[in-house]
């Protein structure tokens, strides 16, 4: 393999991972797995623990499902996926109970509930069941890290305002994080309560919507300004290039729309399979 091939290879694999963390962030973009997102983020450590536990299950189940994708009959694939996922969830439960009992206690019921976390089943259906093993593992890793990062972000904000601390707690007997004494007296209890979870999640999602809009607008303005400049100066070549760029951008937009349509299709297919075409009503709403 020469250098260019290696670069291409890395780029392609990197884009699979980046897709899960940024472009299709499971929490803020796809709005999947909202229950653990809200329930386990009263502190940053819990959010991180939940995220990493889900990442582990996601990578393992993606790999196994990808390995078995030609063996599992199409008709019973959803029950088969659920059993595979449940197996790894049980594994995580046992490992945490043995080695990090404090985290096991604080995640509580949401640890077994990873089974019904829609992110994992969605990736199994949309990616792992049609892709090669290594790519599936990377997809699981990307999605898992995107989930973990989102949970940590919400956790950090809620813990900071609600308890006046950062990453405070103990992991496997080791004290972690800091308690900010000055802030602890002015902590806003509401952030640790369930209401705070809804609030922080809602505000963060609004902020991300706003930033995405701003970014898109800036891009458009830039492209237009370039076109106008070229027109004014009458330079044919520049104009040509500018038009080409605009064309390319349009094509990209189309491609991204197609991608989105594909993702939506996959989601619909999953939901169809789950419930004989009746889950579409759920997908249809809020879309």
């Amino acid at each position, binding site marked *: 393999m020469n250098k260019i091939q290696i670069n291409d290879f890395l780029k392609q694999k990197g884009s699979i991972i980046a897709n899960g963390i940024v472009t299709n962030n499971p929490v803020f973009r796809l*709005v*999947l797995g*909202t*229950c653990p997102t*809200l*329930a386990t983020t009263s502190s940053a450590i819990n959010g991180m623990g939940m995220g990493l536990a889900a990442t582990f299950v996601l990578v393992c189940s993606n790999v196994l499902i990808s390995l078995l994708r030609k063996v599992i009959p199409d008709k019973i694939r959803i*029950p088969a996926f*659920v*059993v595979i996922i*449940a*197996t790894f*969830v*049980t594994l995580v*439960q*046992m490992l945490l109970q043995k080695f990090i009992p404090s985290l096991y206690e604080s995640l509580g*019921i949401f640890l*077994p*509930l990873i*089974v*019904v*976390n*829609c992110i994992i*089943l969605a990736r199994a259906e949309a990616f792992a069941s049609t892709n090669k093993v290594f790519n599936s593992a990377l997809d699981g890793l990307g999605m898992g890290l995107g989930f973990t990062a989102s949970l940590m972000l919400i956790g950090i904000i809620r813990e900071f305002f609600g308890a006046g601390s950062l990453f405070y707690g103990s992991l496997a007997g080791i004290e972690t994080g800091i308690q900010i004494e000055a802030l602890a007296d002015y902590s806003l209890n*509401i952030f640790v*309560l*369930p*209401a*705070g*979870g*809804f*609030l922080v*999640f*809602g*505000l963060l*999602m*609004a*902020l991300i*919507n*706003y930033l995405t*809009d701003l970014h898109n607008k800036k891009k458009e303005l830039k492209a237009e300004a370039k076109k106008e400049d070229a027109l004014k100066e009458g330079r044919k070549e520049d104009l040509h290039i500018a038009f080409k760029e605009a064309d390319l951008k349009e094509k990209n937009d189309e491609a991204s729309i197609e991608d989105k349509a594909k993702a939506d299709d996959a989601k619909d297919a999953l939901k169809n399979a*789950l*419930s*004989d075409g*009746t*889950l579409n*009503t*759920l997908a249809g*709403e*809020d879309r």
Partner: protein
Amino acid sequence: MEFLLLIISAIFVNNFVLSQFLGICPFLGVSRKTDTALGMGFAVIFVMGIASVFAWLVQKALVALNVEYLQTITFILVIAALVQLVEMVLKRFMPSLYSALGVYLPLITTNCAVLGVAILNVNTYGTETAMSLLQFFLNGIFSGMGFTLAILLLAGIREKLEYADIPKPFKGFPITLISACLMSMAFVAFSGMVG
């Protein structure tokens, strides 16, 4: 008196959606209109009641066989099979109820509230608050009612929000989450009613 406390606790104090974060996906997904929310709510009450009874029986079997670690796998399979079974039985013997619950029945397999109530109930085994079969059943039913109450209230708010002038970034999910936040704050007032 004990049962009254159980009812108030399940519906208001430990409301599944607003204080325990279970069943958030349908809570956000199927709360556009009040009638769909009501349909979903009734289907959840129905399945939760039955699933609680089955969870009790399955857990007895697991304990007897000394394989409690299989809890997660067996429960999810039992619930999936149960939902299918309930659907078939209703279709055959109670077509009117079947058409009323309609599409919401199969949705429930992926509702974490059902698996949640089963695991929460079963986890009380061997503790002071260990429940009887009847308590299991009632807890399932009334937790489902708490879910129905929450989703119905949110749907009512969202129907009104359609006409409100909301800043663009807040449209859709964010404003729904913030409405849920205010509802959750209101439900905090119930805590302390049951010790």
